[in-house]
């Protein structure tokens, strides 16, 4: 090992800056290829990617791929209400005559939006607080941040999210706010644990003695080493956020009718169980498929990073 390092060092000494950069780029490309290889070795990860891709494409192109785009809104057609699954309506029609398949595909939009927006709102502040608390470990900054985190983690996130959402005006955005408000502590605690461990690594001390600024140490030395656990958690969290979002709309605190949402469709449809089972069962299955897709994808990402660390 030492010999190799010496050779590499000697090589590096004879290279121009441009050549070094080129080598770095190549090695990055190679490690990306290796990561993809590790990811794709598990067929379930590929199933996950394919499911997620399909769901995203369906959601984006909903107005063009659905058979009855008008049914996504406040459409009523009582003459065709509660039709069981048929060729014309593969998943049947609901209590006021709207095509269930169409509404499911449009409903994917709010579910995905929820997952993306909540994580976008939650990860930056959560990670930043974790970094700060980890870097200033043992000081009052650490104490304040981590004790507040503990308070939020002392109750299951669903309850507080429900409470906040119930106090606000019920709609998709307030639902997202409520979930976000409860979700950041998980990232803070994750990054805090990593940060405390990294704080004592030699490369951090090395940066310190060469006079690097606090900001440089936090963002250029510690942060890059926490990225893979954060990405892993994010990819698994999308599924959880979608589930919590569907629970909020199930109890009427998320997306408001006539806007379609999977949770609301299950809730409304469950009133017509068991005779018109398709109104509730197909949206329920759609939630399971979406969540399963993101979970498989998340597991693949986790395995990819886990293998890399060995």
């Amino acid at each position, binding site marked *: 090992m030492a010999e190799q390092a010496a050779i590499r060092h000697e090589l590096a000494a004879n290279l121009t800056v441009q050549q070094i950069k080129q080598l770095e780029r190549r090695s990055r490309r190679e490690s990306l290829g290796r990561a993809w290889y590790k990811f794709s070795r598990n067929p379930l990860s590929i199933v996950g990617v394919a499911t997620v891709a399909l769901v995203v494409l369906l959601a984006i192109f909903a107005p063009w791929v659905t058979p009855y785009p008008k049914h996504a809104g406040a459409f009523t057609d009582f003459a065709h209400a509660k039709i069981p699954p048929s060729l014309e309506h593969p998943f049947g029609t609901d209590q006021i005559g709207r095509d269930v398949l169409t509404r499911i595909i449009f409903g994917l939009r709010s579910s995905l939006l929820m997952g993306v927006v909540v994580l976008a709102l939650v990860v930056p502040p959560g990670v930043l607080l974790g970094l700060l608390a980890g870097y200033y470990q043992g000081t009052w900054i650490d104490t304040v941040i981590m004790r507040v985190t503990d308070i939020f983690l002392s109750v*299951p996130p669903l309850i507080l999210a*429900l*409470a906040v959402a119930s*106090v606000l005006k019920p709609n998709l955005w307030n639902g997202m706010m409520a979930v976000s408000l409860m979700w950041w502590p998980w990232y803070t605690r994750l990054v805090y644990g990593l940060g405390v461990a990294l704080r004592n690594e030699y490369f951090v001390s090395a940066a310190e003695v060469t006079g690097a600024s606090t900001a440089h140490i936090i963002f250029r030395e510690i942060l890059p080493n926490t990225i893979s656990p954060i990405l892993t958690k994010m990819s698994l969290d999308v599924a959880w956020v979608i589930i919590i979002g569907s*629970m909020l709309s*199930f109890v009427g605190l998320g997306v408001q009718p006539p806007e379609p949402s999977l949770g609301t469709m299950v809730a409304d449809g469950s009133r017509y169980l068991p005779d018109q*089972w398709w109104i*509730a069962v197909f949206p329920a299955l759609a*939630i399971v498929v979406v969540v*399963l897709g993101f979970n498989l994808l998340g597991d693949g990402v986790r395995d990819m990073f886990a293998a890399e660390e060995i």
Partner: protein
Amino acid sequence: MSTLNFLVRRIIYSVFVLLGLSIVIFVIARIMPGDPARMAVGARAPQWVVDRIREQMHLNEPLPVQYGYWLRDALRGDFGLSLVTQRPVTSDIREFFPASLELVLFSGFLSAVGGIGLGVLSARYKDTWIDNIVRLFSYAGVVTPSYIFAILFVLLLGWALKWFPIIGRLSEEVTAPPVVTGLITLDALLAGQFGTFLDALRHIVLPALSLAMGAIAQEARITRSSMADNLSKDYIASARALGIPERIVMGRFLLKPSLIPTVSILGLDIAATFSVAFLVELIFNWPGLARYGMQSMMHKDLNAISAVILILGAIFVTVNIVVDIIVAWLDPRIRLSAARSA
């Protein structure tokens, strides 16, 4: 002595966490638009009544002082009147809590037995078809929200097969046993009404199972992977080399240390079940705390919402302490390091 020390510190810390939670709840309750005094007396009450109520509820004082009054009352067990039921929140909770507790206990029991059982089975027959079926089942359990399980169970086991009733805690023709603990199954046994016990048991199966499915799946996964990890350790090989029967190696040497992660997660899952119960109780029309909390959220009944969340927080924190104790008992290393650091 030092374990005791560790425990006392843990409890004191939890009290501070709960105090913090009460501040969070108070703030949430106060960010709501609208005048709590006006909501308490209704839209048609004259202004002077509202003013008097404002005075009584200390709403004219600064927020920290209001919090002080609120906390003092909460510590006395007085959460004010519920806007929905027009009764003290505390007596509402006393009425609804046992139903939820019964549900959560049953679901916890199912999670522990089912999860550990399936996990052990899966680890024992690793990489055979039994293992594969268990793993497939676990995956389905982890990705399916409990309210979807509830709907599927209602449809399949309740309606199509008619194995279990799907509404409430008892059949209409069955008279409830005298209330002792509030847990109908237990009360029925205490009163010696075996038929009532069976009826209550049949009612609780579907909601408890819907709540437990996720936890069963998770516990099975964790138990399996933890047993698989420990199986390759040297002490198992040496136990086998010494000729100790496989049954004892599995049961005594492998299972106990492998259950440590399972127990920690199981505890958190059981405590979290109270929150998931919000949806499941709604579906099964189960007259529990979660359904009460849900109704109060729908009606913006702040006194009830605050009380329910604070109580669930207290349960969660308590369960966490209990889990720590059980884990310390299972793992002598934790006991020793706690003793050393204290």
